[in-house]
């Protein structure tokens, strides 16, 4: 027990201390305190500067609107799809796509989407080929549109697989099968029956994941840079621009902007929580009305269509990335390249091999450490007097709820002071900050869904709690543990700003190389590097699935689980 206590404590310090220090390093300059730049008097000037930035209110609205829309739409699609298709073959087919879709980094998916829908992209080439009307790309504002629709779409297609994964993990705890039969026997259609009986419990389980999606979407940088509007850009992108301005006084503006970003994210959370209440109210009214909604086939089909479409968009984008990476000359409106060549791959710098190594080390180490810390913390909680997913571990999710752009640069100051930036351990630590909450999030549901009576049986046979953990609980939870590790691995691979800022560029990863090369704008290089970026997480998920299959090769119930 006493040794186990160390796990949640270690997790607390590994996660909360960097975030707190980072926030302090942003709040002080935001209020005018950064003596090396000659300011040490507290003031609100920096906030006045931010407020005076042209188009600021529009930037804020963009962040709020696209974040809320992306979260609401992806949740809606996932809910309707799960409600309408759980337990069917359609469901099983799309379920299998979750891991491959999750392994595509946001930036790679965004580039793929741009190659698909831009006026010079694949769809317009097909249209031009079919109609013969277009000789040149039409002058249409599709990507970087001013309402952020392309950016929101890019977020939706990536958040759907994440929310679906979380939902799949949470479903076993909701007694979904029984509930469904009961609702059906009372004459309810699948969707409304699901909303009344399963959704309340399910939403409670995935709520944190949903809020994490909301925080991420309101402060996203990479997707916004690729697909988002530029006149003006969403708030997080503008903060990054101020942060990187050669005029060093802009650092105060950037710090104040980061504080403002926290405010915007909190506002989005508040709006969301109000939305939850409203939705609950609507559900109660609907339940009282007794509306059975039996003829919901059209709605079910729409849900399956949108779900399949979102998967198709990501996969088509991946195919286009692959095609560009081997394309010779490929002018508009040709739907396919004139010729193919591997020169882009051959010209890949030797440094990419080192980057692969760094990615593997960072992602492997942070995923393993995160799984160990998460299992230790959960086991501590399980053996404490009050087992269950209580509030005590809740604080460990804090990094999910703080926009990364808000604390990263403050953290850089602290690490720099300690002479710690550029060290492998520093990069690993900051990766852990981002990886751990996702690992805990995905591990938590299956952990608590495990039937404690197995443990009671073992204890009744006179064996210790350690035996329960090592010989029974861990083997039975092998699949979710491996999935959580693969998710953590994927999160680590995709980290750009934390790797660059804290690593001082000394630990180039596949992702930092990809972003540096993408700044040259060559679609062949973008295609090749984005594929490389997706490769490692994909292998991670594949290995997790294979190992899980191997471990459960003669255990039928475990195969059905999770």
């Amino acid at each position, binding site marked *: 027990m006493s040794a186990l206590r160390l796990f949640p404590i270690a997790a607390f310090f590994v996660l909360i201390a960097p975030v707190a220090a980072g926030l302090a390093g942003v709040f002080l300059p935001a209020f005018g305190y950064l003596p090396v730049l000659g300011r040490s008097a507290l003031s609100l000037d920096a906030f006045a500067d931010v407020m005076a930035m042209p188009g600021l209110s529009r930037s804020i609205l963009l962040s709020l609107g696209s974040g809320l829309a992306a979260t609401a739409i992806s949740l809606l699609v996932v809910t309707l799809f799960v409600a309408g298709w759980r337990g069917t073959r359609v469901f099983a087919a799309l379920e299998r796509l979750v891991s491959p879709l999750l392994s595509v980094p946001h930036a790679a998916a965004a580039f793929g989407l741009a190659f698909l829908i831009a006026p010079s992209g694949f769809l317009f080439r097909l249209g031009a080929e079919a109609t013969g009307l277009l000789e040149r790309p039409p002058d249409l504002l599709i990507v970087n549109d001013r309402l952020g629709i392309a950016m929101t779409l890019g977020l939706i297609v990536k958040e759907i697989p994440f929310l679906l994964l979380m939902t799949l993990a949470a479903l076993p705890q909701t007694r979904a099968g029984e509930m469904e039969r009961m609702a059906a026997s009372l004459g309810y259609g699948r969707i409304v029956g699901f909303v009344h009986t399963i959704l309340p419990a399910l939403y409670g389980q995935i709520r944190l994941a949903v809020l994490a999606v909301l925080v991420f979407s309101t402060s996203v940088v990479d997707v916004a840079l690729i697909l988002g509007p530029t006149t003006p850009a969403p708030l997080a992108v503008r903060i990054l621009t101020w942060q990187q301005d050669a005029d060093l006084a802009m650092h105060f503006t950037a710090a104040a902007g980061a504080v403002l970003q926290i405010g915007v994210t909190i506002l989005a959370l508040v709006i969301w929580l109000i939305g939850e209440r409203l939705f609950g109210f609507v559900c109660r009214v609907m339940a009282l009305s007794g509306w059975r909604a039996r003829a919901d086939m059209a709605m079910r089909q729409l849900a399956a269509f949108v779900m399949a479409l979102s998967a198709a968009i990501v996969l088509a984008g991946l195919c286009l990335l692959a095609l560009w990476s081997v394309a010779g000359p490929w002018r508009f409106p040709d739907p396919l390249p004139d010729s193919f060549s591997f020169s882009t791959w051959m010209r890949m710098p030797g440094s990419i091999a080192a980057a692969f190594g760094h990615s593997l080390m960072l992602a492997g180490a942070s995923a393993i450490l995160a799984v160990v810390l998460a299992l230790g913390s959960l086991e501590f909680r399980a053996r404490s007097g009050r087992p269950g997913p209580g509030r005590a571990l809740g604080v460990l999710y804090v990094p999910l709820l703080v926009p990364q752009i808000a604390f990263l640069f403050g953290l850089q100051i602290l690490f720099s002071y300690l002479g710690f930036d550029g060290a492998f351990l520093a990069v690993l630590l900051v990766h852990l900050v981002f990886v751990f909450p996702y690992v805990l999030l995905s591990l938590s549901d299956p952990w608590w869904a495990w039937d404690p009576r197995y443990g009671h049986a073992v204890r009744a046979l006179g064996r210790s709690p350690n035996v329960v953990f090592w010989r029974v609980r861990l083997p039975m939870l092998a699949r979710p543990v491996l999935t959580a590790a693969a998710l953590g691995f994927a999160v680590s691979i995709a980290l750009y700003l934390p790797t660059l800022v804290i690593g001082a560029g000394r630990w180039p990863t596949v992702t930092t190389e990809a972003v540096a090369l993408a700044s*040259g704008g060559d679609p062949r290089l973008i295609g090749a590097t984005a594929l490389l970026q997706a490769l490692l997480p994909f292998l991670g998920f594949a290995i997790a699935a294979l190992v899980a299959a191997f471990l459960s090769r003669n255990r039928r119930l475990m195969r059905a689980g999770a």
Partner: protein
Amino acid sequence: MRALLALISVLLLGSLAQAGDERLDPRNWDAVLAEAKGEKVFFHAWGGEPRINDYIAWAAETVKERYGVRVVHVKVSDTAQVISRVLTEKAAGRHEGGTVDLVWINGENFAAMKHQGLLRAAPWSTELPNYRFIDVENKPSVALDFTVPVDGLEAPWGMAKLVFFYDTERLSEPPASASQLATWIADNPGRFTYPQPPHFIGTTFLKQLLVELVADSDVLMEPATDESFAAAAAPLFDWLDAAHPKLWRKGRAFPRDYGGMRRLLADGEIDIAFAFNPADASSAIASGELPDSVRSFVFEDGTLGNTHFVAIPFNANAAAGAMVFADFLMSPEAQAKKQDPHVWGDPTVLAVERLSAEDRARFDALVLGIATLAPDELGPILPEPHPSWVSRIEHEWARRYGVVQ
């Protein structure tokens, strides 16, 4: 939490300790070489162009063989990130053992670093052995970086000149001045754009217009004031006001960077693009990024030109190794290879006529690329305005065009 805040405020105060290793004297070159041996130099440089990355890798390999200096190219997507990093280190009181040993830099970024004392304080570049070949007489920008005196704080690496290019299959007669360009844009709506300021290539285009349209360009050599800016920049913003509704996407979106603009030319979305390297179009044709029907042109009255440099931050950990690498980058051997359009195509900072016959032959052997203008076709070089104009232009641009209704 209170303890943490105390810690942060202590570290933000910074220490008053003086910047590191000033005793290193490039005039005693043997001592520098001796100290450099075995050092690891972190060279922070834009990494968006595989050709340039390959060239840096070659130079790094060479200094490793000859001088035992290991150079690591830290690929950045924006040089301002590096300045932000050095500033943070200064803020955190890290006066030695910094993470940046050498940075690829010029203009506004140099001015900011020099002004904030983020550069190695003692002049060093002018004392490097290969500096004697630098063409100070005919290339004034090697000593005046955007009008700011270099003062030996950065070593010249290459020359840049604004060159436009166009697809001959889609455009027969390219415009030859800013006003002709305005007419052309009006006649061909949706076919021109530029990277969104403050991206430097977009800002460079605005400066080109400013220099060309201003009544008396002498005022641009002085720091901008409210009055001088209002008067001198008025023609620029008149030009932009007229052009923007006829730009690509009606000026409601802009390519994010130079690569984005070149991509639009390759896709046939626009007809004219521009680069800060005369050989860029040829190199892009060679790698298949642009069709081979693309050719270069310049404005009749000249285009902006400047020099790009490498600089050592105040707290560099491997200053000796950085000097050795900077000196090698200035050597006739490295400069000739850099100018080869098959390698990079970046013009030299050296006075080629002053080199030995052997070294001159390296330059004479270079063949221009298919879309590269010969040196005598490149037209006059217009000097860069004082850096203070840049932030004012960018600010005014953002105010007028950064928010489209």
